[in-house]
């Protein structure tokens, strides 16, 4: 990967290339968010396009994770390439909803016969955790993504669409970005993890790209910059 460090040692957003995996789902919303921050962004549909574009960061969007995995299987190099880029080349990755499922090591409630995953985050995640579409919801979340060092907690709009839930983080080095108090049908409350960050990997089970707020994408760009080799 060619270096993009400028003379004053500050990485300019304009020189960053972010690719959005555009097999299926809400990819254009991510493209618009990234472009609103001044970085370059392109939809990528194949391993050949990814190799040509050489992204510094990659977004796995929301959509149907089963459909995405099946579409991807037609391009046998695609998932191995993404694994290599993320786990060996230090390319940063952000997975939203279905993308978060694809980056998780342990997935509950898969379709019959299971589904292909990219993995890398030792999380336990459960698909369609809150129920069917009628249980999709909006709320306001607390997220630890604010300030220079991302140590400040900010309010952020949380849109959950047939969302999965992160039930546990099985590696203590994974940073939890936010939690949500979910009131279950029996009125008891449980704590659900809404997003995590680990090295060059970021995930959320909610959809910042469906809001007018680009602060989460700014946070991801910060992670990309920190991991550019």
């Amino acid at each position: 990967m060619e270096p993009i460090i400028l003379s004053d040692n500050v990485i300019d957003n304009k020189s960053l290339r972010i690719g959005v995996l555009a097999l299926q789902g809400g990819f254009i919303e991510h493209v618009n968010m990234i472009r609103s921050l001044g970085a370059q962004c392109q939809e990528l549909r194949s391993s050949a396009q990814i190799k040509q574009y050489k992204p510094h960061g990659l977004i796995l969007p929301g959509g149907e994770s089963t459909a995405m995995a099946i579409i991807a299987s037609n391009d046998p190099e695609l998932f191995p390439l993404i694994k290599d880029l993320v786990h060996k080349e230090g390319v940063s990755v952000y997975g939203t909803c279905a993308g978060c499922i694809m980056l998780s090591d342990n997935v509950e409630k898969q379709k019959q016969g299971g589904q292909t995953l990219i993995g890398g985050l030792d999380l336990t995640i459960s698909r369609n955790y809150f129920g069917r579409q009628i249980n999709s919801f909006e709320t306001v979340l607390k997220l630890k993504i604010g300030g220079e060092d991302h140590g400040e907690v900010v309010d952020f709009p949380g849109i959950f669409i047939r969302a999965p839930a992160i039930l546990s983080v099985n590696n203590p080095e994974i940073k939890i970005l936010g939690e949500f108090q979910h009131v279950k049908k029996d009125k008891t409350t449980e704590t659900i993890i809404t997003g995590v960050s680990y090295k060059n990997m970021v995930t959320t089970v909610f959809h910042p790209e469906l809001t007018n707020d680009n602060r989460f994408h700014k946070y991801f760009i910060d992670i990309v910059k920190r991991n550019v080799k």
Partner: protein
Amino acid sequence: MESNQDISTTTTTAPVVQVSTFKTKASLAQMLKGGVIMDVVTPEQARIAEEAGAVAVMALEKIPADIRHFGGVARMSDPHMIKGIMEAVTIPVMAKVRIGHFVEAQIIQAIGVDYIDESEVLTIADEENHINKNKFDVPFVCGCRNLGEALRRIAEGAAMIRTKGEAGTGNVVEAVRHARSVNREIKRLTTMDDDELYSYAKEIQAPLELVKEVKRLGRLPVVNFAAGGVATPADAALMMQLGMDGVFVGSGIFKSGDPIKRAKAIVQAVTHFNDPAKIAELSENLGEAMVGINTDNIKEEWAKKEK
């Protein structure tokens, strides 16, 4: 690296949670973009659709080609049959209700379907009124032939739009006509002076506020899929190149020679709609397409049943 213990993001009181907002309804459609929604009549067909990469299935008793063939009154499907399909797959399940039949919609909502299609494919129940979809928690998709029709449906609460096309024919001509009409009217609207919008809204019989919003966005405020006559990977890619967000395939799959192969090929064609070499490869050896009906020879034009 921080440990998990020192995070202070947890609030002690549960936050306000809103369900079934227009945002949550329209957002699910956004997540279906670039995907194929397939008509299925059994749990087995639903599993085939899921394995082929469908983003959702439309559960119904008879596919449109058979509704045309057998005639009679076409109604909502048996809830038991729909529930069987909901149990068979993890992807969203949609179901059709008759235009204006709000009790069929209440029933479909009660069994927990993810999206309702108020559909001209079924027999009309109310010739003057559509369902007031704003009153429902489940989101609705509705068909349209032009911008005015699309905006009337959105005003009634539709969170997703599709072309009407002419379902059950295997002939894409009407879907193309409807997609082009909506595109042409949006293009014309975006070049209009603000002072012209009042009379234009009246002309196309659409609410002024929605007309203004379309002018501002340069597109419909909700996702717009192609439907009604898509039978081949080339048809699907054609609709995507015409700017549709995704594709419904009804009779085209399970009325063809090799449904599994055709379903997979149409899914791939929607992702790679701008890659002719890829679509050529996908179109090879698919077996027979559904026979199809020339739309000049059909007894009843469903698309013209309602305004």
